[in-house]
């Protein structure tokens, strides 16, 4: 029994070796990328954009998943330092929590670029993002514009994961744009954790408890898509605006299921991140803040 277990373990680890591909041990310059999570198609697109750019430019790109855990994020960054990468791209799990990790990585003098979310501390070479607060504001203004002929506008908001910087920023922009507008009422504002299933359940509950509303703002496309399903079942036709511009989100807008989405261009974010990292690796200078345009994607 002992031998059997041993042979299984050996086979398993050999399989790992095969999976990792025939990586030669040459000291080809590597770029490390730490992504907050791959549970969300937005970040998968970002990873795809990054990998495509790396392939085109011939860079060696290592992508690690932080699984939304700042502790794992730090471990990933430490491992990249061990790997001896020439540049690190971080997509922070949380703007506050990542600061310490960046400070630790700063000690190794490896240039660091953050993408999509801010870092509130530590030394960065560059910061690539679309402005989430601005996006929230544009979502609010879109609703106001679309429903400008109504005397009162009742809005439902589906929030992302409570405490996440994306949720905080998008909510901030949204609420600030609506502050003081007397004919606007936010009848419900509930978290659905950026998740499609939860978006569906929460929307179903709100339809039951507060059936009278004119628009839904979901802080990401996944939740918006869940809400769309609930609204279809209840045969309610309201303005629905999402955020992110994922493939499914844009498909829903084209088909008319969703009214619009604040498209963030995650593929461009990933591409720009790798492109910038490559430039830094080769000694070129890059801008400190590289804004990626948000586009309101509508029919």
């Amino acid at each position, binding site marked *: 029994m002992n031998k059997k277990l*041993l042979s299984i373990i050996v086979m398993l680890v050999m399989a790992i070796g095969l999976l990792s591909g025939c990586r030669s041990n040459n000291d080809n310059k590597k770029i490390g990328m730490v992504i907050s999570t791959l549970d969300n198609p937005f970040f998968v697109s970002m990873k795809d954009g990054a990998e495509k750019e790396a392939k085109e430019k011939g860079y060696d790109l290592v992508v690690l998943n932080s699984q939304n855990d700042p502790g794992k994020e730090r471990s990933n960054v430490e491992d990249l330092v061990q790997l001896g990468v020439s540049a690190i791209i971080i997509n922070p799990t949380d703007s506050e929590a990542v600061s310490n990790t960046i400070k630790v990585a700063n000690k190794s003098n490896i240039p660091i670029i953050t993408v999509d979310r801010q870092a509130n501390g530590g030394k960065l070479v560059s910061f690539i993002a679309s402005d989430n607060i601005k996006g929230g504001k544009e979502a609010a203004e879109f609703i106001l514009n679309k429903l400008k002929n109504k005397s009162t506008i009742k809005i439902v908001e589906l929030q992302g994961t409570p405490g996440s910087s994306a949720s905080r920023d998008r909510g901030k922009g949204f609420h600030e744009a609506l502050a003081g507008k007397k004919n606007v009422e936010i009848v419900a504002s509930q978290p659905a954790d950026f998740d499609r299933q939860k978006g569906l359940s929460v929307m179903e509950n709100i339809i039951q408890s507060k059936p009278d509303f004119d628009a839904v703002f979901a802080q990401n496309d996944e939740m918006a898509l869940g809400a769309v399903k609930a609204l279809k079942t209840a045969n309610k036709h309201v303005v629905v605006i999402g955020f992110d511009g994922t493939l499914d989100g844009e498909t829903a807008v084209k088909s008319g299921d969703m009214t619009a989405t604040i498209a963030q261009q995650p593929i461009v974010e990933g591409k720009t991140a790798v492109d910038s990292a490559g430039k830094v690796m080769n000694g070129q200078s890059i801008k400190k803040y590289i804004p990626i345009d948000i586009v309101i994607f509508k029919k």
Partner: protein
Amino acid sequence: MNVNIKEKLFKNKSILALVVLCVLLSIMTPRFLTLANITNILNQVSVNAIIAVGMTFVILTGGIDLSVGSILAICGAVSAVTIKSTGNIFLAIIIPIIVGVLIGFINGFIIAKGRIQAFVATLAIMTIFRGVTYVYTSGNPISSLPDSYNSIGNKMIGVIPLPVIITIIVVIIAYYVLSKTRFGRYIYALGGNEDSARLSGINTNKIKTIAYVVCGAAAAVGGIIATSRIGSASPTAGIGFELDAIASVVIGGTSLLGGEGTVIGTIIGALIIGVLNNGLNLIDVSPFYQQIVKGAVILLAVLADRKRSK
């Protein structure tokens, strides 16, 4: 006596697996077996290791504690608030541990006295205290913690990180309690056969409750280290940590049925997970495949455990 030999055999299996993993990884990449990398691995597993040690006590009694992640979060938040409002590091350590002890006591009380199944009870506590953490933090992380506090999670004593030293101390204490004290023997007796234990005069309710208290306290210590390492207490901290802790305990040879297992085994289990996490990163296995590999290792460990209990 037979149990002792079986135990040692299984302990050797986990150690064997760990050694095999390390050897293979060091062949596949020269970056694995460096002092800096090994130090990193030890540092990275310290939070999980401490939680897993606490979890060992609970699983040895035949129970389980799903709430450790939430305990980590609320205690981390309490620790952060305490250091920000009092500036006193001792208070910022003692008070969250007291909170962890209290939640552990609630768990133990519901399970022992209330006779509610451990899975269900701790699931409920997990949910409740995640909510408590959100309310307590108003959904925002608590940051800008003083450097003196952050040094708990970041300071190096020579070449060894402080969290690793804390982990070693916790392990030594736990090992001593479980193997050399009467309380330890009672834990094993309770897990082996609860009815016999009770009939032979052991206050099983008290022992069970203390096991959960230990687990809560361990999660609190984990919370302090995690918070000081990041420099921020997040309301979403610790989500999913119960899984890694349970996996460490199981891989290390402790039976989920209770009565068999050791703290050393748990640490080896935690190390296997840590080495896997680190090694898979170093040899650049796609993040999608990493999940599969981790799950497969846990499955192997459970299968091997099954074979042994037959």
